[in-house]
């Protein structure tokens, strides 16, 4: 087997800055995105640290109120728009979709590169806005505060978000066409890996939903310049903004979670050496979540007490959207039954995801209950719920995927022990940070408070302590991944010994991925077939079994 030094890979085919900044290779674009979103994650994380440090004491003694309000606004904007929404799609989606379907690249490689520049432009504008005064409206930009009362930069960061939205739209569009038109011969829809189904559903949401928030932001910018769309003194309706904003932003949470679910659907069969339980139902549930997800936005408006009957409709639909997520969770768990379960770090992240996503998803049901939401809306109960899904779910999924495919992406093996430690620290630190917030929320502590009554301090101290542990857990991977680039063992084609088209290729892959177009003849995760053809020991240190 040729060692990486002599083989041409996508990483060493061209060392100039130009070959990177003008690349049209989907794998290099993954790396470009990975670096950018990591920078944004650090910024968002610093904001979170400022928030949790301030909330250690009931008094507002670390930051001024204005600074605190800017910190939580920036935390939300950076984490949602500039980290979570691109995270898995722009990195692992970009890298893996062509590999998993047997293609040389995505359908529109130049548009792929354009999407990264669009992302960078929006992110830069948002950061410039931060440096020149910041924004204090909350990431939700509610009117009329944002359009008529805020004295901070509204137009600039709003413009940054508007522009970055197009990066999402271009990526989603690219993926939809790629999945439809570029599958290798024999790769029918029901032979696709579940990660592809997840990315397909995500792309539908990206393409259909993002334009709505783009126009909404444009309308808010117009209002900021004197129009009265959302201004009650001009006959406008502030709640209209909320409807338009959440029409996208609720499906946006599915943009964030569906890819993570796709990652879990790949990791679990790999580390149980078993077909995933209920493939068809998992694929269908991704689409069901994407569709029903467009019909529930009103649950963010329950306390605006507009129409009780509309609230009832949104409540029942919100309960309905929980069912496909429950189905997925049961299917993943059932895959363990009579499997051959191993506990390498990607699997630890996947199992961590399941525990945290369970709690996050179940607490969503609490919020769907109209009679209960009147009490807990706008409290820390909501904050805890969405962090369980977005951090406990989506980021665990991102980390799990990063660990699982790191050998393929980098050609190197990372050290396993620090990785397990990171997974455990993240799991413990995460629960420590956010579980007390459920309690604080039910006790009535409102969100977005710079200072709070003293009886909430104990819970806040617990939360901040958890955040400290969580921060260490997030910092560790940076160090051992960087270490692995220089000192890690070379990965070989299939270090995990698992099935999947991507594992038949060199690590890192050749710029053109496949030397010959593969022909697919079997369903994914067909471990029983692998065992029949190559014997039970197949996949343990051998490469032939990766593609039956």
């Amino acid at each position, binding site marked *: 087997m040729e060692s990486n030094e002599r083989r041409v890979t996508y990483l060493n085919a061209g060392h100039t800055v130009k070959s990177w900044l003008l690349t049209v290779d989907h794998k290099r674009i993954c790396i470009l995105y990975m670096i950018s979103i990591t920078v944004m994650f650090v910024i968002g994380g610093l904001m979170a640290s400022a928030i949790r440090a301030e909330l250690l004491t009931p008094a507002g003694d670390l930051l001024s*109120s204005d600074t605190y*309000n800017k910190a939580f606004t920036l935390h939300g904007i950076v984490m949602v728009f500039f980290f979570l929404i691109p995270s898995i799609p722009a990195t692992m989606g970009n890298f893996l979709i062509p590999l998993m379907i047997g293609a040389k690249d995505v359908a529109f490689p130049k548009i792929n590169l354009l999407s990264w520049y669009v992302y960078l432009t929006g992110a830069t504008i948002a950061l410039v806005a931060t440096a020149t005064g910041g924004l*204090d*409206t909350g990431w939700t930009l*509610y009117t009329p505060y944002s359009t*008529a*009362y805020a004295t901070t930069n509204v137009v600039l960061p709003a413009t940054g978000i508007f522009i970055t939205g197009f990066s999402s739209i271009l990526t989603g569009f690219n993926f939809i066409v790629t999945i439809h038109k570029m599958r290798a011969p024999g790769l029918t829809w029901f032979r696709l890996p579940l990660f592809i189904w997840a990315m397909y559903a995500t792309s539908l949401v990206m393409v259909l939903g993002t334009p709505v928030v783009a126009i909404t932001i444009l309308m808010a910018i117009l209002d900021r310049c004197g129009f009265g769309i959302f201004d009650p*003194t001009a*006959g*406008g*309706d*502030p*709640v209209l903004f909320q409807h338009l904003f959440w029409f996208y932003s609720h499906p946006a949470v599915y943009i964030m979670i569906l890819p993570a679910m796709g990652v879990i659907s790949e990791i679990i069969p790999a580390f149980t*050496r*078993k*077909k995933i*339980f209920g493939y068809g139902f998992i694929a269908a549930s991704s689409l069901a979540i994407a569709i029903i997800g467009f019909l529930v936005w009103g649950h963010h408006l329950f*306390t*605006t*007490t507009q129409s009780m009957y509309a609230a009832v409709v949104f*409540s029942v639909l919100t309960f*309905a959207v*929980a*069912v496909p997520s*429950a*189905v997925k*969770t*049961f*299917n993943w768990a059932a895959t363990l*039954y009579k*499997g*051959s*379960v*191993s*506990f390498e770090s990607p699997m630890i992240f996947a*199992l961590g995801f399941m525990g945290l996503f369970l709690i996050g998803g*179940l*607490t969503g*049901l*609490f919020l769907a*209950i*109209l*009679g*209960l939401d*009147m*009490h807990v*809306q*706008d409290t820390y109960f909501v904050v805890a719920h969405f962090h369980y899904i977005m951090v406990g779910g989506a980021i665990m999924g991102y980390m799990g995927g990063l660990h699982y495919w790191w050998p393929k992406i980098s050609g190197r093996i990372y050290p396993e022990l620090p990785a397990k430690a990171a997974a455990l620290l993240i799991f413990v630190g995460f629960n420590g940070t956010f579980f007390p917030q459920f309690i604080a929320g*039910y*006790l*009535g502590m*409102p*969100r*977005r*408070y*710079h200072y709070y*009554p003293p009886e909430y301090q*104990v819970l806040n101290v617990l939360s901040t302590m958890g955040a400290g542990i969580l921060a260490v857990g997030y910092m560790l991977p940076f160090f051992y991944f960087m270490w692995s680039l220089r000192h890690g063992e070379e990965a070989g084609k299939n270090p995990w010994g698992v099935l999947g088209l991507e594992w038949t290729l060199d690590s890192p892959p050749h710029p053109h991925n496949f030397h010959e177009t593969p022909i697919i003849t079997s369903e994914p995760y067909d471990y029983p077939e*692998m*065992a029949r053809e190559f014997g039970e020991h197949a996949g343990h240190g051998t490469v032939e079994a990766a593609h039956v």
Partner: protein
Amino acid sequence: MFLQLSLFPPQASTNAAEVDLIYVMMVLLCGAVAFAVIAAMIYMGIKYRRTPENLVGADIHGSTALEIVWSIIPFFIVMGIFAWGTSLYFKLEIPPANSMEIFVTGKQWMWKIQHMNGRREINNLHVPIGRPVKLTMASEDVIHSFYVPAFRVKADVVPGRYATMWFEATQTGTFHLFCAEYCGTEHSRMIGSVTVMDAADYEAWLTTGNPSPVEIAAGTAGPASGSAGGASVVQGAAGAAASPVQAGAALFQEKACATCHITTPGGIGPILVGVPGSEVELASGDKVLADDAYLRESILTPLAKVVKGYPPAMPTFGGQLTEEQVMSLIAYIKSLGTSQSAQAHQ
């Protein structure tokens, strides 16, 4: 420290216990589900761990029967929870017909409260125990939210419309009041309290008049004068501030409403006696309920709904009246006579 950590705010309203009950049931149910799934995963992870005897998983594709079972059962369970939650919601949202009204105005960054006898307060709402209280709320600027954890209710106060919220207190004492919708720099400061008093104490408190200079200086109450619009407080008997009805009566004359809205037929505008709570027919042919929101809209944007048989001649008072002044006008109009049958909808 930990022994003092409670999990629930005080149950201080008639609905609080049911809200807590649905919460506890959910914690038990979801806890049981989460425990079952996690326990099953731990059990299976250990039992089916990879060993030299167990290198590959069994050839199991799925089970349609199981999929149907674990879709249908959760579906019915969540629909049951939905039904209970919705019935509780209707109880929380629809005030009883005999509710006592209090006006609340939210503005950056304080709550201004006015009782129907004119007694005013800032950030501290006094209410009697055992009587349903309905708050009619307006915002002077951005969206706020009036939240009393002990009563388990909140309502977003959106500028440009009224928000209503009701409760019946079941415990005397002082409870937190929070603004629960981010509203700018001092959002965290827009807090106060709800003080529940025995009926007799409340009556006594109501008639002690507006706060003295001593109270103002001590910061226990705010100024007795009106809000940003420079409205003066009309003095009623014995130095107490005017009730909303009295203030509204004075405004009705001062703003010349009486010129068109006379009490006999033939005026340029409709007779207002008996209008609140009745069904009004508009020039478009539609019929609308003359609730508080309709009355407010008719004052601020009169051309939005023109009453059938009358010319679209009423000038707008938008920008000329504060929310408190509008509330007082509505209180005055109601004092002329309301339609009984529609009281419950108000």
